[in-house]
């Protein structure tokens, strides 16, 4: 804590002299809240990124199967979630479905929903971003030259083997830039969890600026942190893209 003391002092001094009030840097209570919010945002981002990619892979597979039913269900899912507001989706899950599902009772005898706010936010955000991922993976898969699939078939690969060993690795490389963009959007969309009182970054920032009345400062901090988070993701994805690159495939 001692190492951070000069920083805290500097920001306290900044507040005293100029009125620019970054409470999170010198007030331990606000700092704890803020760090916790940042942590929740990171957690939410990681969980939804992984889940949405899984949804995308499964959905892209569902669009290519022979059964018209599975294809139809996948298409309806994609169109439904792409063309409706993510906020209303979250409300629908959190309020609507949660009310229909059974409740448990906690120690105080209060009704407690089976699935909490964080879990519903993860589920609905993963489904929302997943619907975009399905389209992204599909376009990647369709960009694979047909001769590759024929070659795999000629080598005796089953449909599943072809999908796992040929289509997925090649399609992934083709659609990585588009996937990066969607995941960036997903990180930004995690702010919607604010609406169902998940204590993520925007939510705690709102609490802090309500207490300390420092909206512009908190906002600037918020933007900077989101830009850093997005920057980390973009850097990671670019690094991954480079490490996966195969000469002769794509540009």
């Amino acid at each position, binding site marked *: 804590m001692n190492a951070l003391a000069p920083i805290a002092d500097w920001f306290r001094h900044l507040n005293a002299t100029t009125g620019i009030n970054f409470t999170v840097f010198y007030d331990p209570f606000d700092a704890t809240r803020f760090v916790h919010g940042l942590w929740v945002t990171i957690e939410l981002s990681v969980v939804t990124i992984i889940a949405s990619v899984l949804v995308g892979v499964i959905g892209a597979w569902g669009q290519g199967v022979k059964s018209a039913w599975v*294809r*139809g269900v996948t*298409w*309806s899912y994609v*169109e*439904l979630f*792409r*063309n*409706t*507001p*993510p*906020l*209303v*989706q979250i*409300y*629908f899950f959190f*309020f*609507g*479905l949660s*009310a*229909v599902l059974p409740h448990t009772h906690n120690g105080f005898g209060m009704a407690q929903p089976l699935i909490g706010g964080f879990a519903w936010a993860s589920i609905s955000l993963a489904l929302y971003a997943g619907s*975009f991922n399905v*389209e*992204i993976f*599909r*376009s990647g898969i*369709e*960009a694979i030259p*047909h001769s590759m699939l024929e070659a795999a078939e000629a080598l005796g690969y089953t449909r599943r083997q072809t999908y796992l060993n040929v289509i997925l690795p090649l399609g992934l490389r083709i659609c990585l*830039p*588009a*996937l*990066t*963009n*969607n995941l*960036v*959007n997903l990180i*930004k*969309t*995690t*702010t*919607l969890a*604010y*609406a169902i009182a998940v204590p993520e970054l*925007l939510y705690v920032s*709102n609490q802090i*600026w309500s207490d300390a009345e420092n*909206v*512009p400062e908190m*906002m600037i901090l*918020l*933007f900077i942190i*989101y*830009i850093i988070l*997005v*920057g980390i993701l*973009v*850097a990671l994805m*670019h690094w991954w893209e480079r490490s996966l690159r195969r000469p002769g495939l794509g540009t």
Partner: protein
Amino acid sequence: MSDLPVFPKLPAALRPRARAGLSFALPRLTIWHGFGLTALLLICASVAQAANPAPLQKSIFATLVQWTPLLLRGFLLNIEISFLSMAMGTILGIALGLGLVAQTKPLRQTSWALTQFFRNAPWLALLFFMIYLLPYHMRIGGLHISLPDWLKAVVGLGLPVMANVAEIVRGGVRSIHPGQWEASESLGFTRNQQLFSIILPQAFKRMLPPWMNLYAILTTNTTLASIVGVNDVVTRAGQVLAAAGNNPGLLAPVYAYVLLLFFIYTYPVAIATRRLERRTKVRI
């Protein structure tokens, strides 16, 4: 060179999808998807009806029908906000996009910084920013201007649209073959003439589908305005729920109904975008 927010391409949602050769025809999205959504609504309503311990005085369908005018009025506000933000975002975005392809370096860098800032900030955070920081009442000279919340929301939503439109413009201009620039230069066109009479008319066709896609995204994002207190369809849905006696069984059907409203409005835009994409693909 690819430091933080330089994205090599337009965001996925803004890019024309499935440019590569299709190995099978796209299963055309039909009215069935609308039916699917309606079915979801019906299922939710029936499940809620069945699971409801205390029977309502009115059935859920009757309640929905009764409150439809109120919800539609809220939905109309969403549409208005989406129109105004799109108009604002497009006008500013075209200017910013032209800045992105300008020849003077300071102008290009400023536009780049602005674009990246507004593209990488969460929409909701920008909305909060505008709601809190724009004054409710302004006086410019003798002119009194009051900014109600929904107008602030228009500005807050218009800014990310602006940045995305700028990227679309840049992408469109970049997609035109450099030979076009060279050819027009050799014909003695000035830079402005090249841009406005040669490049942009060609790029326009390619910019239209991602622009429409952006509109669809914006429309769904207008619901964010409800969080900052605008009386839009989501806020009204909350009011309807309260007016109908806060019945938990009503929650799912009402929100499914709002989803349906948006689907009905956005879906034709999605279809039109896809058609246009296919058409431009053939021509170019």
